[in-house]
């Protein structure tokens, strides 16, 4: 009886381990998109300790998460509205933000991912929260992000704010 129970537990543990390994090495497209968005939030964040080399590397890395023709439309009551078309604009905006602010912390919450029937594009709805450490002011906006699968890599093709209260 005991041996039978031990075997059952061992099989269950083994199956869970296999599932975990499978999910780690072969993540679902949704998981990949969520991870990439977390990376975008990390790269969009910066602090005063960021050196010149790291700043440039992070900005270039951040821009790499967008398609070459990416469009960003950010309209918020908390900051001046801005739009960016293409990677050059985005690079400029990221460098401008780093030159104007000493630190910025960007977080994405409550993301929902919906794939198009062809599975080559996806729409993510999420809430973005941007704040400056030690500052009471912060920004919260609802966003819609469209991603495109370009040669196996999910890139942001369009990101726009959504008005929560109409």
């Amino acid at each position, binding site marked *: 009886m005991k041996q039978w129970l031990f075997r059952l537990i061992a099989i269950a543990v083994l199956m869970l381990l296999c599932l975990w390994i499978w999910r780690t090495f072969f993540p679902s497209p949704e998981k990949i998109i969520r991870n990439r968005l977390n990376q975008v939030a990390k790269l969009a964040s910066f602090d005063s300790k960021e050196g010149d080399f790291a700043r440039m590397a992070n900005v270039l890395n951040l821009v790499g998460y967008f398609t070459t023709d990416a469009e960003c439309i950010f309209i918020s009551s908390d900051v001046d509205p801005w739009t960016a078309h293409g990677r050059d604009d985005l690079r400029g905006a990221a460098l401008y933000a780093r030159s104007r602010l000493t630190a910025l912390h960007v977080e994405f919450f*409550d993301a929902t991912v919906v794939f198009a029937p062809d599975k080559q594009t996806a729409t993510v709805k999420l809430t973005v929260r941007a704040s400056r450490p030690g500052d009471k002011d912060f920004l919260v906006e609802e966003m819609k992000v469209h991603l495109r699968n370009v040669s196996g890599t999910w890139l942001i093709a369009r990101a726009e704010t959504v008005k929560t209260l109409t």
Partner: protein
Amino acid sequence: MNSSAAAAKQPYRPSWLRIVLIGRKPKNTLIRIVVLVAVCFVVFNFILLPIQVDGISMLPTYRDGQINFVNRLAYRRHEPQRGDVVSIRLADPEVSHPHVLYMKRIVGLPGETVSFVGGHLLIDGKVLDEPYVKKFCDWEIGPVKLEPDQYFVVGDNRSMPEALHKKGGAYRWQIMGKVLL
């Protein structure tokens, strides 16, 4: 009767520390803990959602950093009322426990026309008495006709510039519940 035999007959008494930590009957304590955890999980996920106020838009009624709860069952039997302080979801309805919510007061009900003239809130052209507003403003907002399932929400802190204050029509599905305290 010798002393060792008497000690053997005495019932086992757990130490006071053990009694404090796990009770006289550990099995019962374990059952109580499991029940308590289950009750807390259900209550704080599906009935009373704990929130922390972040920002100044609801001053002076709610201060920045204050802890509160959202009653998610408040509108099961009746619809939201004017004057209710509610939490509004930014996220998709699919997200059952959003991390970020707006906290606003309902001032306009479905079908009404809301406007701000000289800082006064007008509902269908009549000035609304707002005892919760302590600092008045000079906001000018054109008439907004609310849809049949839309509520007009605004914060109590009207000393903020109008452009910086999040306000407007919120659909019924966006209202998650009523703020408890």
